[in-house]
């Protein structure tokens, strides 16, 4: 035995045993299959002249589409704002010991979840035919401070906001309630034992911890809302999809215009997903090895899996204290 090989043998004896990922033939086969399918789909998309990609390109940044996009973003943001704030209020009311408050909250949720959004939108839009004027005053006393004609307050825009926001509040209320219920009761005991009032406890102890449970579904609802806003086209509100429809009603380029709208929806959804990941990170509970679910961590984990498959960064894994 030469000195060299002896030394190598000795080193091997001291070095921690390396773990090599098992060879998984099916994972390679399935990856290859998916790549082939994706290539076929991509080719079918890009080379088919019927999609009229030149038309897509022409309208993608056109001013009416961009205006529609802004309307869609605005409606999404404002109705989610109404939905989340009113929904939180409803969730807190629902948990109240006062039965009038919790009953009112239940009734609200029952009604707005139980009727179609489309009907609610049309109802708000046509409020003036039910109540031609709105009066501010003290009920049952005949004392009025003033009144307005309903149609001046309820524009298609406000009708859309009311319809979307009030409906969303009913759904958000249930999400927030689940979040509140997820906080262990011991947290409330601890807060109370220090002399924190219920309101303070809710703001400082309960809601911040409930966020972890609340954010993923609210993110989901926001992305849902982005597309639900297209329902308001029944009120002739030129949001993204309706703006595309207006164009193809004129030019008959239906498919490319729908692609333009869909590409924008996809793009905004991507951005919203990234924002959601950042917010989740902020409310993650820090533990010994907590995964905080951020995008960065997602990439890092994917890379780690990849690296351990290919065996590139084993030394690093050993250095960071990976247990054998």
């Amino acid at each position, binding site marked *: 035995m030469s000195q060299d090989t002896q030394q190598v043998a000795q080193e091997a004896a001291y070095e921690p045993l390396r773990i090599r990922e098992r060879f998984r033939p099916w994972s390679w086969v399935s990856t290859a299959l998916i790549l082939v399918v994706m290539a076929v789909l991509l080719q079918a998309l890009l080379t088919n002249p019927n999609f009229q990609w030149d038309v897509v390109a022409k309208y993608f940044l056109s001013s009416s589409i961009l205006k529609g996009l802004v309307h869609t973003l605005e409606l999404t943001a404002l109705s989610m704002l109404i939905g989340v704030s009113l929904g939180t209020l409803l969730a807190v009311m629902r948990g109240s010991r006062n039965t009038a408050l919790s009953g009112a909250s239940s009734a609200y949720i029952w009604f707005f979840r139980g009727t179609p959004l489309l009907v609610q939108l049309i109802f708000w839009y046509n409020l003036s035919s039910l109540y031609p004027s709105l009066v501010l005053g003290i009920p049952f006393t005949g004392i009025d401070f003033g009144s307005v004609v309903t149609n001046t307050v309820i524009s298609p825009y406000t009708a859309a906001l009311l319809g979307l926001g009030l409906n969303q509040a009913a759904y958000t209320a249930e999400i927030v309630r689940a979040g509140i219920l997820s906080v262990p009761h011991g947290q409330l*005991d*601890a807060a*109370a*034992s*220090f*002399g924190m*009032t219920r309101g303070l406890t809710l703001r400082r102890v309960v809601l911040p*911890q409930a966020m972890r449970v609340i954010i993923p579904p609210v993110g989901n609802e926001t992305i849902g809302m982005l597309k639900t806003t297209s329902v308001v086209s029944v009120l002739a509100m030129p949001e993204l999809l309706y703006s595309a429809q207006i164009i193809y009603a004129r030019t008959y380029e239906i498919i490319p215009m729908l692609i333009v709208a869909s590409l924008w929806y996809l793009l905004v959804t991507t951005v919203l997903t990234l924002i959601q990941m950042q917010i989740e990170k902020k409310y993650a509970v*820090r533990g010994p090895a907590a995964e905080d679910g951020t995008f960065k961590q997602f990439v890092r984990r994917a890379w780690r899996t990849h690296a351990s498959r290919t065996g590139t960064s084993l030394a690093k894994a050993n250095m960071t204290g990976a247990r054998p």
Partner: protein
Amino acid sequence: MTAPASPLSPTRATTTPMVVARGVHKSFGKTPVLRGLDLDVDAGEVVCLLGSSGSGKTTFLRCINHLEKINAGRITVAGEIVGYREAGNHLVELSEKEVARQRAGMAMVFQQFNLFPHRTVLQNLIEAPVLVKHEPKAEATERAVSMLSRVGLAGKEKAYPGQLSGGQQQRVAIARALTMRPKLMLFDEPTSALDPELVGEVLDVMRGLAESGMTMIVVTHEMAFARDVADRVVVMDGGTIVEQGAPSTVFDNPQHARTRAFLRKMG
């Protein structure tokens, strides 16, 4: 009824009692849990509350700071009736704010620590002083840091509870309780959720507190701690006190059959 002067603590007759519980009844629904409980605890006294599981120890502690409402009787802490005020011959429940103010004067340490997991150790410690007592943040921080070193956790300010061992978390919980400068501390089995090797560090901190003159009511199954540290042990069974006295008396010469049964079980 006045507390009999005890030869063990000659000052007792002259100090005002910190806690006076008289005829305390508490039921959950139709199930009575406390059945006419009487107890006096003097300022500076350390009382260990013993008794088998379900005898009502936790419920009694929670009644003392009004986390549970009693159905009959009264509890006073530092001369104030807890949770109620007298109006003629009635007791009327206090407002939420007034109950909160009473609670801020005593502190409770829980079996499950109940630290706020979303806040750092330092934030856990200054939360109540700043928000409840409206102390300036700098002052609260300064005291929090000194409390942390008092429980042997200097330098852990920025850690999150989830990054600490159980024993460390419970010590943070004790430091957090101390930042409120309580007149009275209530401990509900503070070491029962800990791995055996972590129990000692928490008991050491509590021993130090007892020596500093803190008034403490401690529910515990740590018999050695009770024998060493308590001025008095109180044995509960079925929602009443069956026996109490100096640790040596109760442990070495138990009078009541329930006490003997309990001590046998504890080894």
